[in-house]
């Protein structure tokens, strides 16, 4: 664990770096941001395809998969029919890849690395070499996760939560999963140190904490969540690795009989210990997924409604309280593990309390629209769609947070619909909005609006066709992670809805082709940007030339006002950027 404080190589003059130092092993936060973003987009696509395969087995259990069924090995899909082990592998890796390799690197690694230093007015991150190290520790983690599909017995197959004792006795892929996780956690830790120090130390003159754009606040709180919540999972991962490799039994109670044989292990462990340590991370982790999305959406909504953010101070206090509260709600994932009433009442109450800041933030975003003059570029469409979708995700958390309702809804498709509404039409839509919004600053060209709108409308419809039926499937009581729900009477009854979800998923998958085409096509022949500030925004990242050179700002900017000064009465234009002296 090397010490985290290398500094920028301080040769004053600017030397032309060789290609591999300029683009591969670069210490420039913008290059690292792009590396993270592109890798994360690829992993999102890969995780998405894993899910689309699962959806075939869910919709038409036991029938051979058309077209690509025969591509897979006999062990995984004999005659094109998916075996349960392979289904579990797809499920576990879909969750792991989407969360740890897709959304977090894109939201924190990609957008955070690229935009935060610009919004703070810094030439680069405080520790550029450390920033580069965090990407190059993240990539091996990702590759190990991909390679684990070829481990003997397949990839990890005990869910993205990998509860023990199931994960202790799983085949070799689980060990690869653990090693991959340790890489990813170390990468996030190094990254979060960089974010916090940059936000505190490198703010330009005049940029007090309460003049920071809301996106920077979101990344700042997210960095603290990453910094303090990830290590316990690293400890738990080390312990499970010891369990699997060195034969210890941290999480294995004594007297286990696995497939008929008494497991000869010292025993005395407690399976709940893994659950506690895992969820101690995983709940702050889901807030790591949503806070950057809130930051991106608030930037885009204020820019495109030409109006200041409603209640900036209340929003900042809400996001800080969200950060704190997210650490004391984790056991609402474990209501049904034989927990006593005192503990479950405590966690019920904190879960209700944590819903308040989220409601405040959402209402504030909606109120920011009132009285605005709203434009509808694609980035704004995605940001606007985020708000009601995140509202559905948040509201459906209420029945799951109350133990009495959780009695019926625990571990059913209702849970799957709840968190997917927060993550899929929530975070991923916000991240797509961010790509459309900042693409002109990164490449100097706008993404095509027609393709963008096409991508938006089809994705919006598709995503609701996928996840809305799941609420009803869950209400009927269908458990999650079932290879074939028609085994149960109540499952067969709602099989039609599951098939509908599957068709929605493939429809949604098709819609992403427009985004991929748009993403690569616009790089070379998108509409050229006429000014460094195409959206007429006020925050500092638009004060840099397009694309920002090494060192970002030709001369150090000074900040004179808050982040969202739009339509100031008596000002020359309808926006007054932070770094411009007079109104």
């Amino acid at each position: 664990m090397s010490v985290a404080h290398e500094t920028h190589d301080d040769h004053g003059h600017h030397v032309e770096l060789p290609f591999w130092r300029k683009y591969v092993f670069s210490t420039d936060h913008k290059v690292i941001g792009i590396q993270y973003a592109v890798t994360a987009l690829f992993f999102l696509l890969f995780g998405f395809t894993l899910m689309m395969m699962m959806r075939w087995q869910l919709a038409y259990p036991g029938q051979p998969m058309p077209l690509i069924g025969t591509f897979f090995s006999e062990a995984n899909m004999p005659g094109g029919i998916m075996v349960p082990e392979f289904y579990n592998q797809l499920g576990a890796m879909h969750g792991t890849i989407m969360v740890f390799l897709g959304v977090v690197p894109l939201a924190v690694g990609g957008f955070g690395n690229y935009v935060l230093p610009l919004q703070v007015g810094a030439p680069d991150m405080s520790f550029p070499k450390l920033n580069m190290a965090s990407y190059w520790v993240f990539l091996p983690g990702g590759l190990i996760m991909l390679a684990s599909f070829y481990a003997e017995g397949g990839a990890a197959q005990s869910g993205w939560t990998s509860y023990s004792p199931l994960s202790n006795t799983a085949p070799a892929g689980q060990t690869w999963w653990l090693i991959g996780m340790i890489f990813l956690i170390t990468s996030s830790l190094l990254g979060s140190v960089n974010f916090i120090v940059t936000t505190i130390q490198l703010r330009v003159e005049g940029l007090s904490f309460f003049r920071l754009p809301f996106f920077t606040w979101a990344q700042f709180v997210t960095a603290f969540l990453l910094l303090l919540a990830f290590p316990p999972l690293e400890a738990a991962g080390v312990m499970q690795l010891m369990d699997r490799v060195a034969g210890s039994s941290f999480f294995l109670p004594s007297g286990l009989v696995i497939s008929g044989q008494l497991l000869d292990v010292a025993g005395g462990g407690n399976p709940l210990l893994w659950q506690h340590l895992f969820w101690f991370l995983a709940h702050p982790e889901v807030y790591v997924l949503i806070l950057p999305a809130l930051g991106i959406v608030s930037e885009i909504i204020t820019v495109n409604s030409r109006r200041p953010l409603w209640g900036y101070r209340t929003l900042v206090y809400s996001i800080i309280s969200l950060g704190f509260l997210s650490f004391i709600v984790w056991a609402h994932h474990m209501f049904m593990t034989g927990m006593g009433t005192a503990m479950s009442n405590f966690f019920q109450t904190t879960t209700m309390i944590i819903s308040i800041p989220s409601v405040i933030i959402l209402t504030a975003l909606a109120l920011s629209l009132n009285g605005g003059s709203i434009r509808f570029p694609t980035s704004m469409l995605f940001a606007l769609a985020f708000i009601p979708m995140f509202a559905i995700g948040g509201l459906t958390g209420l029945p799951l947070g109350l133990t009495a309702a959780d009695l019926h809804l625990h571990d059913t498709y209702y849970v799957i619909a709840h968190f997917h509404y927060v993550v899929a039409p929530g975070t991923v839509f916000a991240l797509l909005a961010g790509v459309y919004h900042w693409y002109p600053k990164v490449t100097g060209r706008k993404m095509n609006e027609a393709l963008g709108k096409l991508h938006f409308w089809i994705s919006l419809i598709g995503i609701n066709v996928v996840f809305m039926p799941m609420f009803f499937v869950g209400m009927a009581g269908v458990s999650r992670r079932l290879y074939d729900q028609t085994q149960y009477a109540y499952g067969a009854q709602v099989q039609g809805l599951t098939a509908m979800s599957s068709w929605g998923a493939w429809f949604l998958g098709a819609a992403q082709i427009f985004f991929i085409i748009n993403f690569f096509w616009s790089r070379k022949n998108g509409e050229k940007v006429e000014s460094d500030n195409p959206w007429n925004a006020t925050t500092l990242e638009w004060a840099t030339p397009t694309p920002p050179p090494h060192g970002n700002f030709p001369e150090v900017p000074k900040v004179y006002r808050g982040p969202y000064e739009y339509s100031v009465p008596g000002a020359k234009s309808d926006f007054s950027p932070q770094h411009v002296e007079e109104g």
Partner: protein
Amino acid sequence: MDEIPYTVKPHPLSGLYSGKLGIWLFLASEVMLFGALFSSYILLRVGSDSWPVGSELLNIPLAMLNTFILIISSVTVVLGWASLKLGEHGKAKMYLWVTVLLAFGFLIVKGFEYGAKFSHHISPATNNFYATYFTMTGLHGLHIVGGIAVFVYLLTSGSKLLEENPEHYTNRIECAGLYWHFVDLVWIFLFPALYLL
């Protein structure tokens, strides 16, 4: 504007150069890492009905020697940093090399301890006490190795920075020193928890 501010000079408001704030944040995450391990140790110990007494199974004199080694190495780091501040570069390097040697000493003593255990076929699989013992002291040992690597780098190829920009080099030593004191701090809690109680 190419140079990153506040890498060497402290920030007017926070009064810190970036490295110090960075190392303290890193130590905060380390507090959580070892906190999780201690919390698991307490849970496993309270939860189990037969937990052996540490002092009978483990070698107390060796562990005490290790504690002395780490405390002394903590002092030599701080003295090294102080003499750097005074500009006595030669004395500083001597102190820091002593720290590295003491750290190696710690690992060697740790090696004897582990060697004795393995020769008696005791391993993490024996029971949860040994599992916790090996995991916690093992992870702590890895942190010692990390510390040695940093100090050796600073004393060899990194030391040319001492001539170029002494204050920058002193800051780096201070950060490495903070990390080293934290590793000693963890051992101060690890020693009674595993060996004595």
